């Protein structure tokens, strides 16, 4: 880098708002991202407020009202056991959003430290971690998920663990790559020159500076995790009855695609919108956090 190229970056004014505000501003300027965030907010609220806003008990079967089409009583219709789909949809938001969030949390919790270690220390450790990640990557997701689901017993938590584990390699790779990219940055060398211990440098210097692509990837992974939960439900490995999740609702609904199409429409649209929103938000984050704009 030369003087000129460096200085041609915009000079930041002291009276300009802080950088923290700027990405937010850029994010808010992105219409798609804002719409996505609003939809998500609605779903999150729905999930949180489900006990209060759900018109019916999501678990209460009504054998007199099996598979009824949407009506004034049952806004979105009822399912194969006569349970209110709208209420189940609200409650299902809990499992599905949780599935997304927790799996990504698991992936992050394992992937990021491994990636940090591999990228920062390099050498044998890096080789070892990279090989393991490669091996994990070549082990098909569903094998892992089925095996884990079978091993731990099918449940939402275990589906989340499986999804998290299989999403983990991406984060290792991403983090490692980012760390490699900044490993020789002067501020790290400066930190070493002061004599700061590696642990501290990784935590205070490396991590914050590799975080933004990770955040973006996390948003996108949440979306795929929600879909993955639906897939696992299809194989009977996701959220277990009678607790609703969108995936399991859709899975049951597929047996009644013709007799009761409304059963699949509600969870289908919910999944679609959520995944779409997470993707939109992820996109927005990426653009907002990318200094190159």
């Amino acid at each position: 880098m030369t003087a000129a190229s460096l200085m041609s970056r915009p000079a930041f004014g002291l009276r300009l708002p802080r950088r923290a505000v700027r990405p937010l501003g850029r994010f808010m300027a992105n219409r798609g991202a804002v719409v996505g965030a609003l939809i998500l907010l609605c779903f999150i609220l729905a999930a949180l407020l489900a006990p209060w806003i759900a018109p019916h008990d999501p678990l209460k079967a009504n054998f007199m009202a099996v598979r009824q089409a949407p009506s004034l009583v049952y806004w979105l219709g009822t399912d194969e056991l006569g349970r209110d789909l709208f209420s189940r949809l609200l409650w299902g938001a809990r499992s599905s959003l949780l599935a997304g969030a927790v799996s990504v949390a698991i992936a992050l919790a394992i992937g990021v430290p491994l990636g940090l270690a591999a990228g920062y220390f390099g050498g044998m450790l890096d080789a070892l971690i990279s090989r393991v990640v490669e091996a994990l990557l070549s082990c098909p997701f569903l094998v892992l998920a089925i095996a884990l689901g079978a091993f731990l017993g099918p449940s939402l938590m275990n589906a989340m663990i499986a999804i998290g584990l299989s999403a983990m390699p991406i984060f290792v790779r991403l983090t490692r790559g980012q760390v490699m990219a900044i490993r020789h940055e002067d501020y790290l060398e400066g930190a070493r020159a002061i004599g700061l211990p590696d642990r501290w440098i990784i935590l205070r210097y490396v991590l914050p500076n590799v975080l933004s692509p990770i955040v973006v990837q996390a948003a996108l992974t949440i979306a795929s995790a929600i879909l993955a939960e639906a897939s696992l439900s299809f194989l009977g490995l996701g959220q277990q009855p009678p607790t609703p999740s969108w995936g399991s609702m859709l899975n049951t609904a597929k047996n009644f695609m013709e007799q009761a199409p409304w059963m699949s429409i509600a969870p289908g649209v919910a999944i679609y919108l959520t995944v779409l929103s997470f993707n939109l938000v992820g996109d927005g984050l990426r653009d907002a956090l990318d200094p190159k704009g």
Partner: protein
Amino acid sequence: MTAPLLSLQDLRVRFPGAPANVVDGLSFEVSAGRTLAIVGESGCGKSVTSLALMGLLPAGTDVSVARADFQGRPLLELDEAERRDLRGNRLAMIFQEPMTSLNPAFTVGEQIAEGVMRHQGLSPRLARERALSMLEKVRVPDAAKRLDAYPHQLSGGMRQRVMIAIALANDPSLIIADEPTTALDVTIQAQILSLIAALQADTGTAMILITHDLGVVAEVADDVVVMYAGRVVESGPVQAIFDDPQHPYTVGLMGSMPSMGAREARLATIEGRVPTPAEMPEYCRFASRCPFAVDACRAQRPPLVEVGPGHFAACLRVPLEVHAGACA
């Protein structure tokens, strides 16, 4: 003197959403065979000026000009197709970063030949021959072999030579060189500068040389425009600028260059920094850093006044020794 090749009056550039013009009323002329240097600190709008002339600014950028006459044609009023025909043909550019300005995926021969084929309609074979002769012309050793080399196989100096070859391939009448040597080592910088000088003498091409290094200016320029924050603060023949700098900014700039002679006293400094676009005042943009500034400087935009033959300065307080010396 013949009619200038390019005559620019009152160029203004504003980026969408920006609070002030990045280039604000820039005027200059370049004649065939001459070298005009544009000097100024980083961020003062030098590159933006060159991109505006080339028509390469991002879409949506607001560019206005009172007059931009290039070989008798209104440069900024041409439509996109006409400008495309001009670019790389009559009007060529050399960029600052030789390491990133060449496409890593194609051989240098191809990258030179491409422009030749585009503008001269030569066959690939002839274009390749032309590329070879261009490489020889910019004194790339082993040119025939290097023709099929990829950029990454060349050193920075070599790459900059290739960039020059690309620019010269269609015998342009004007070359805009945006800091062509900044990224290079001193020894390589010297090579490139002397190459450019020699080629220019050969072909009679006019050149706008953008730089922040006064040494480079001293070395090759005929005329100089000193820019500060998007405006011209001083312009004139190179001798006049070096021997008779009038604007306080020019004086400060020259004084802050350490000399190669025996060690002297402390360097002069210009305190403060370039105002950001948000802070650009309508009045003299240097006023906030100028040790000579008076209230009048903050009241109006100082006009460019002729202080010598062809030598202009935009300062209310020139000549300094008269105005400032008196009240010092």
